[in-house]
């Protein structure tokens, strides 16, 4: 199998299992954190009955979803109706496969990279998958064959397509600096320092690109203030109105996994990935590896908290305002960013 032996395969499978398991663990933590953080911001207690500090609440929720009655409305387009939740969850999980989450080290006589697949076209692969996730939402809305999901699906398609453009344009600046689509090289580029004091993270060299990416990723992950495809006062539940039980849970999980991968991507692209500033990880041996993993976790955790924080501090945008922001503000700014970066690269040696 492509010149792979059993140890290689074992290492690869371990990494795959590890990433999926950790993703689902963070998903559960996020589910609880969302409620506890919102409760904290709103002066409430939040769920604290199941287990110590309510830690087992996600487990209870999972069990509840499993035992909920599975309802398939009679008017739905069956195949697509069943496919849509999977189309949201699976691409979201797959995206993580190209993100480097730690420094590489050697064991078993070979170099082990903490990244499932170091693709040459890593970033393009991510965008391909993110675009796939839109299909889940759109098809879910369409297949339900009912008016609110349809409106939700329509909103999702126009919103995500517009914002994907901004996301794509915003990272071109990063690509121009790094000169590679390979995510491990994007991280490698960001080690070292800028003007001797700042770490050479892209957030400092590409602040505008970072902001655009951050704002657009809220729209891309359907989070408030841009959660228009599923607004409850207008569209009941949007595209997942007609879904129940585990199928609804899959939409729900897909949304959170997308949140996790987006945070990881933000970390990788703009915050130096697993890089710890002012520290040479390679010199620290196995401690360096652990340090790099911790750094990645802390940075990703920061973005996850940011997503929660923003959700509970801002009201929802209206659709025309959202489109206005996407097409008339973010996209031109992204183009300006590309031009500025190009000018800088042309003038600087």
């Amino acid at each position, binding site marked *: 199998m492509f010149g792979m032996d059993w140890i290689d395969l074992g290492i690869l499978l371990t990494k795959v299992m590890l990433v999926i398991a950790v993703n689902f663990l963070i998903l559960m933590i996020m589910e609880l954190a969302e409620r506890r953080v*919102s409760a904290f911001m*709103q002066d409430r207690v939040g769920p604290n009955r199941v287990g110590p500090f309510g830690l087992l609440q996600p487990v209870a929720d999972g069990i509840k979803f499993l035992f909920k009655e599975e309802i398939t409305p009679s008017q739905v387009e069956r195949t697509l109706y069943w496919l849509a939740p999977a189309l949201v969850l699976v691409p979201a999980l797959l995206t993580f496969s190209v993100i480097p989450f730690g420094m590489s080290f050697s064991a078993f006589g070979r170099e082990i990279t903490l990244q499932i697949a170091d693709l040459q076209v890593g970033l393009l692969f991510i965008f391909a998958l993110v675009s796939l996730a839109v299909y889940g939402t759109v098809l879910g809305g369409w297949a339900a064959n009912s008016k609110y999901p349809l409106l939700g699906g329509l909103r999702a398609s126009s919103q995500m397509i517009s914002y994907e453009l901004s996301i794509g344009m915003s990272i071109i600046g990063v690509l121009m600096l790094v000169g590679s689509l390979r995510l491990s090289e994007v991280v490698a580029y960001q080690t070292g320092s800028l003007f001797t004091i700042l770490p050479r993270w892209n957030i400092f060299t590409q602040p505008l690109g970072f902001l655009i990416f951050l704002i657009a990723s809220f729209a891309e992950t359907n989070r408030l*203030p841009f959660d*228009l495809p599923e607004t409850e*006062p*207008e569209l009941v539940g949007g595209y997942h109105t007609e879904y129940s039980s585990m199928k609804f849970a899959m939409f729900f999980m897909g949304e959170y996994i997308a949140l996790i991968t987006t945070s990881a991507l933000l970390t990788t692209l703009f915050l130096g990935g697993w890089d710890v500033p002012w520290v040479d990880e390679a010199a620290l041996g196995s401690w360096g590896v652990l340090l790099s993993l911790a750094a990645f976790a802390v940075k990703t955790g920061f973005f996850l908290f940011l997503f929660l924080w923003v959700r*509970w501090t801002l*009201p*929802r945008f*209206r659709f025309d305002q959202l489109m206005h922001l996407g097409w008339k503000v973010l996209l031109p700014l992204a183009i300006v960013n590309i031009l500025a970066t190009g000018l800088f690269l042309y003038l600087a040696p």
Partner: protein
Amino acid sequence: MHSTAYCQAVEQAAEITVPARGRYIRTILLELERIQSHLLWLGIAGHIIGFDTVLMQAWRIREPVMWLCEKITGNRKLLGMNLVGGVRRDIPQEIHAELLQVLAGIDKECKKVLDAITTDTTLFMRCENVGRISAADAVALSLLGPTARASGIGRDIRVDHPYAAYAEVGCQVIVETGEDIWSRVVVRMKETLEAVRIIRDCLALMPKGSIMADVTDRIPAGRIGLSSVEAPRGETHHFVITGEDSRPYRWKARAPTFQNLQGIPVMVQGENIADVPIGLGSMDPCFSCTERWETVDLRSGRVRVYSKAELQELCRKRYSIR
């Protein structure tokens, strides 16, 4: 609110004069109800535009108001204080200091919320120039309460036809001229602050004496009473014809929501779907108040009016009372 309006109508019919202290206590309770209603509305409006933090915070501020109501009357929401001729319980001097302290807290927090929401640009973006009703339309459609006052129509029963103790303590009519949802938010928040002021004045000015008129005779039959009260949502009218044995012969209540709903078509014309829920929500609708019943024969299109006896019979059949 409604019990005050009803009692006032009966008092008018039977020519009963409520003692001053009773009228002051009624005013305090009416204003407490206004505060909690406006805060509840603010929370729901926040929820409608996807701002759940406002919902939770507004209801947290509302909680001391409910506490105050319970302290005074024993109930949180349906206060059960009004009797024909006065009120049931007094507000003793001993709890005044405590009440004033809680009021100061509410006042402070309301100002903070008003500050926070007036500086929030995203909130402003969602509410400004949305759900407009011009002053001319507001008059033509007879809109009431804060909905009309946000369109620049300074109508307020408390000032136009003072009842309870409003003539003594006075009341500032809050008028905004924005004609949009934003103005409705501001009107309600400012009214909340004004209500706190009125309660404070009432507590300070409240004369000593009886809280209840001496109602010894039966209420005379065949008299007519009509009273209007400025409810948090707008004018509420109660009409009463007294009957035998101190029972009402006819009673008709008119809540403001039915009238306010007439503004919806004007409000949503040419707006986004996303603005419809907040447009409807901005007039603080109470749908249980709008229930009407009419039977129409679909074949002939004729409307049938039921007599009192027929209605009684229907009701008995429905609930199997014999």
